[in-house]
């Protein structure tokens, strides 16, 4: 396999982009990424997206976006793995370059979620779960996470308030990210008082519905040398994906993200790093409970201790395991199919020393993890700044 580098990045602000359509926000991320990488053409474009068919009535995003950004003719298609679509598109691009098929690939994550009203969006998001045996019973995606959170609180005797540290940290970090949806600070007090949406999950446990697009240009090693933007080269040192049952009720242990465990072990091994080498971890905090379960399944905390890590301040930018350094899904926002690309883009900024007030000191190895559904598809990437 050939080494793969990130040569350019582009993103739109995350939020409600009423004036811009799906194809426009894709454009708003891809063009800056191409400029950043100083390219005019690419061999292929992979678009990560989950909900365009359901919420915008548009599939076939590869050709649509390729044409719209002036790349008509190139290889292009959509990659879908629910909320893990962004990282799945990245992995497709990674495989194409690492395998020697292409030298320059654009990976874009795009999601437009605000063209529909609440109940339709709720129903669409439930497509990430088992349609016939979870969603069909009227169980929303939020409710599935609430089932996990309730059980977690029960098994480990953790009060709801303890999860607030995840939300507080995410909002704090979003304040330093000009593209974040919620750059406002919150307190543990406001967390406790937030509106309940599926108990015990309240509004501040949950990531928002929003629009957003992010893009990366992936290149081979030879090509990377020719890009002259002067920034630190960032290499994708590990890329792995693993799966679990779609339905939570089919898992042997619902509180254990097996696909996170498997994919992170593979990624550590491929990158030749150990968990202690990771300087920051962009995890999939779609809900605070997911942050806790991720920290545990990936080895950053023992079982039942993920929340404790947050409580003890270890997850802040200065902490032992900085997470959600640019706001995470919670406060940067979670445009579902775009999220995995945002995570890698933000980790790249950290490794290049471009994270501004949120800079993790001496960051040279970053991990990102993007989760499809309630843990059914989990993609782990490890980036190394060279």
């Amino acid at each position: 396999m050939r080494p793969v580098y990130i040569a350019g990045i582009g993103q739109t602000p995350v939020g409600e982009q009423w004036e811009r359509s799906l194809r426009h926000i894709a454009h708003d991320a891809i063009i800056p990424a191409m400029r950043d990488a100083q390219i005019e053409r690419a061999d292929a474009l992979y678009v990560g997206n989950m909900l365009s068919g359901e919420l915008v009535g548009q599939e076939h995003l590869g050709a649509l976006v390729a044409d719209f950004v002036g790349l008509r003719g190139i290889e292009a298609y959509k990659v879908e793995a629910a909320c893990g679509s962004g990282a799945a598109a990245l992995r497709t691009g990674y495989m194409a370059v690492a395998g020697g098929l292409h030298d320059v690939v654009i990976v874009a994550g795009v999601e437009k979620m605000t063209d529909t009203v609440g109940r339709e969006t709720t129903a669409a998001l439930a497509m990430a779960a088992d349609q016939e045996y979870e969603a069909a019973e009227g169980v929303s995606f939020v409710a599935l996470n609430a089932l996990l959170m309730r059980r977690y609180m029960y098994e480990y005797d953790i009060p709801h308030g303890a999860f607030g540290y995840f939300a507080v940290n995410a909002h704090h970090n979003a304040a330093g990210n000009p593209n974040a949806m919620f750059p406002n600070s919150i307190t543990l007090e406001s967390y406790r008082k937030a509106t309940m949406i599926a108990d015990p999950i309240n509004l501040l446990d949950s990531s928002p519905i929003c629009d957003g697009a992010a893009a990366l240009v992936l290149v081979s090693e030879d090509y990377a040398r020719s890009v002259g933007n002067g920034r630190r080269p960032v290499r994708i040192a590990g890329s792995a994906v693993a799966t679990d049952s779609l339905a939570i009720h089919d898992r042997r242990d619902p509180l254990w993200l097996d696909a996170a465990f498997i994919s992170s072990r593979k990624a550590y091994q491929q990158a030749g790093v150990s968990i202690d080498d990771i300087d920051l971890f962009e995890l999939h905090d779609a809900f605070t409970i997911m942050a806790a379960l991720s920290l545990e399944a990936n080895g950053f905390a023992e079982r039942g201790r993920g929340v404790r890590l947050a409580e003890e301040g270890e997850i802040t930018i200065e902490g032992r395991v900085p997470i959600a350094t640019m706001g995470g899904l919670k406060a940067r926002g979670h445009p579902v199919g775009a999220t995995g690309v945002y995570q890698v883009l933000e980790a790249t900024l950290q490794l290049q020393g471009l994270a501004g007030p949120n800079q993790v000191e001496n960051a040279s190895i970053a991990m990102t993890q993007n989760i499809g559904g309630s843990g059914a598809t989990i993609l782990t990437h490890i980036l190394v700044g060279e």
Partner: protein
Amino acid sequence: MSVARTWRTRKQRYALVGERCDYCQNAIFPPRDVCPHCAEPAQKEFALSGRGTVYSYTTVFDPPTGFDAFAPYPVALVKLDEGPMVTAQLTDIMPDQVKIGMPVEMVTRKLNEQGDEGIIVYSYKFRPQLQRQALAA
């Protein structure tokens, strides 16, 4: 869901008909073509008793399309006595009365209506096991 999709799963939804694996004897619900425990083909029909306990629960305040008429409603992961876990609504109970470990039993209830002119969908839900006061008296 379309008429055909609803119809296809009628036995499972009306009566919790799953399977029992011929090889490892594990009960399976919902039915699958391959046993999740031993990866052998699983085909023998088996009706679960419908009794189980609440593994976890929550309340849906913001329902997906098609469930507006019922919200808020409690939902749960129910661990069935025979082993499998199911995701289902709870019924005949106020959300604040649900507890982890509570014994529940399956009832067949109306899940939703596909609009005023569409079909009515019935499915399994769970309620607290019925108290048999009369018998005790």
